């Protein structure tokens, strides 16, 4: 019996996912645990591993959105016949020849990178859609198909660009319409949601002399992982959150959820868009441990290999744009979290200390809080704590 490959539920609330591409072709041998296909959920794009060994007999869903639990392929022994799953088989007039010519085994093993609406470079479009595209000078490769199997149909083409009077010539440099990725849609939805939250901001300047020394010292102690200011900030914030439990909260309409551990999210600019992987239980980790976790998360975020669990359960977020030489900024809340810390770059500044002018490395950070969950004074006390931890790291012990 062939094993059905079903779309897994990779996190709470996941109802569907979008198959980006298969990493194996029909007829390829597959080992259990080997990456089988790339899946785009509303949070991440990740490779999904095969749950059985054998031969990939059939790809039932080559690409596109699929509900959780639906059969998307079959793994079995060579030559084994598979039937399309019942929920896949579309009603068809019986006489219609179901042409499924068996693929020769020597097909090119590398499937061309599939883009929406195309397979192996061939763009699927209805004749009407092709004619409209030809008349309007629209590149079909720029159009996302919404017809069956991703076929580009007329409405996909007519909705590109401006409707109305047909200009005789459309410049190729016209506005490019890129379909939204799931990550981009999620960013848009969640940040719009954040905008409805009453929020306030608190800004402080921090003397980073000792924190920088700590980073240096830690680097010497732990040469195997590159420790950064963000790691120290993560540790410091985690300690601060444990001391100010009123900060480690979420507003939940009829209750305030108070979390037992500091699960600190770190905003990462990944190629596909902003993602916020979480360092879970940061208060229990050493700076070096945090650095190792952080390096792994950021690396996988950039390679689009985060798993859903990496993104779930954050209670607080750090967004550090210091490396981009940003002096200071205000971050938008990362719902449902109640607070987010926006960190600027550290710059030498002239600071009066005990009546004398000193040149000190100063960092400006701004805390944004959900006022439904956190009051100004609570936020201020938290900020004062983490400022003192950064200026005198020993206090965090």
């Amino acid at each position: 019996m062939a094993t059905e490959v079903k779309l897994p539920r990779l996190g709470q609330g996941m109802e569907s996912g979008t198959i980006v591409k298969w990493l194996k072709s029909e007829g390829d041998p597959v080992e259990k645990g080997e990456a089988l296909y790339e899946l785009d959920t509303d949070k991440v794009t990740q490779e999904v591993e095969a749950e059985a060994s054998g031969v990939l007999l059939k790809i039932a869903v080559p690409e596109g959105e699929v509900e959780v639990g639906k059969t998307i392929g079959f793994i079995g022994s060579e030559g084994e016949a598979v039937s399309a799953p019942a929920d896949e088989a579309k009603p068809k007039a019986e006489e219609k020849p179901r042409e499924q010519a068996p693929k020769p085994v020597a097909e090119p093993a590398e499937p061309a990178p599939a883009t929406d609406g195309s397979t192996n470079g061939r763009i699927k479009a209805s004749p009407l859609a092709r004619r409209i595209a030809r008349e309007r000078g629209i590149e079909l490769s720029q159009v996302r198909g919404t017809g069956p199997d991703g076929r580009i149909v007329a409405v996909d083409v007519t909705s590109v660009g401006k409707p109305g009077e047909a200009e005789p010539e459309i410049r190729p440099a016209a506005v490019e319409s890129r379909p939204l990725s799931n990550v981009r849609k999620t960013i848009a939805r969640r940040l719009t949601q954040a905008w409805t939250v009453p929020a306030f901001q608190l800004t402080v300047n921090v003397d980073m002399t000792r924190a920088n020394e700590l980073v240096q010292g830690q680097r010497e102690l732990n040469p195997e992982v590159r420790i950064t200011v963000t790691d120290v900030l993560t540790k410091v914030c985690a300690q601060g959150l444990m001391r100010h439990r009123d900060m480690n909260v979420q507003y939940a309409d009829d209750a305030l959820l108070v979390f037992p551990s500091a699960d600190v999210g770190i905003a990462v600019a990944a190629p596909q868009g902003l993602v916020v992987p979480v360092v879970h239980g940061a208060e229990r980790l050493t700076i070096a441990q945090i650095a190792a976790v952080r390096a792994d998360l950021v690396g996988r975020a950039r390679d689009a290999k985060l798993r859903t669990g990496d993104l779930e359960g954050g209670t607080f977020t750090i967004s550090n744009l210091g490396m981009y030489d940003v002096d200071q900024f205000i971050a938008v809340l990362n719902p449902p979290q109640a607070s987010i810390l926006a960190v600027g770059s550290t710059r030498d500044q002239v600071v009066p200390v005990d009546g004398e002018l000193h040149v000190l490395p100063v960092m400006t950070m701004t805390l944004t809080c959900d006022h439904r969950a956190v009051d100004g004074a609570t936020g201020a006390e938290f900020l004062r704590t983490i400022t003192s931890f950064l200026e005198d790291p020993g206090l965090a012990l």
Partner: protein
Amino acid sequence: MPELSYREAVRDAIATAMREDQDVFIMGEDIAEMGGSMGVTHGLVDEFGHERVRNTPISEMALAGAAIGAALQGMRPIAEIMYEDFMTLAAEQVVNQAAKHRYMSGGQLKVPVVFRTQGGAGWSPGAQHAQQLEAWFVHIPGLKVVFPSTPEDVRGLLWSSIYDDNPVVFFEHRTLYGIKGSVPEKIEPIPIGKARVHREGEDVTVIATGRLVHESLKAAEEAEKEGISVEVVDPRTLQPLDEETLVASVKKTNRAVVAHEAVTRMGFGAEVASVLQYQAFDWLDAPIERVGARFTPLPFAPVMEAFVVPHAETVLEAIHRTVDRQS
């Protein structure tokens, strides 16, 4: 406007033509006293006598040949072939004789004969008494093929068939004999080769014949509740085919379903689909869907029969496939 059943409409066309024209007569098996196995010619023998309402021996080939001979001699005979299935027995005369004489004589001979026949599932007639063989005759140059679906159409088209100088194979559907519809007071001939748009729509054109016209209209009503606007067109004449009307409709809606009760394979819908894909290629936004019977002899058991032939739901499913979009 008076209301007639499909059966009465056929009878009215025959009777009116026979009243007005001595050249018109009808022959067939048990059509006189019995009124035909479907009751279509009921009462005609009383009015016109046995000379013009002629019972024939049980030989479709003989009665078809006799009708062709009469037609060649200047009469306008109507030959009733009791079941469409029995057209196979008359095929030699219809296909090799009637269809050829005008051509082979260089136009010197005319063959103004009508072969009226009927078929269709829905009443458990079994495998040998319900076939839909219209496509066979559409394939023969020299024949005209008519398949009306309403009382008005069957009356107006039978009239035109009687007065056409070419052999016409005239298909009636068994399950439509009882349906009623309003008809003009006086018979208005309907030109052969003219389709009828039963219902206008924007999203998909269903081109249906015979019983499937009515099933398609039901499907269109269902689709409308879902916001899908369906145009239903009945070609009425399969040969010659009103390609212009069909193509214009599909150019408007960009999607097409062809539907008939005959099996899909090599069915009339295949020809329509071919015409559409060629003439409306650049207007098609979805593959043309085909609806027809499953490829099997018709089962006798009612549930199996219902499973084999298409219904409104089958048409609706095809409509859905043409407008299918990914979310």
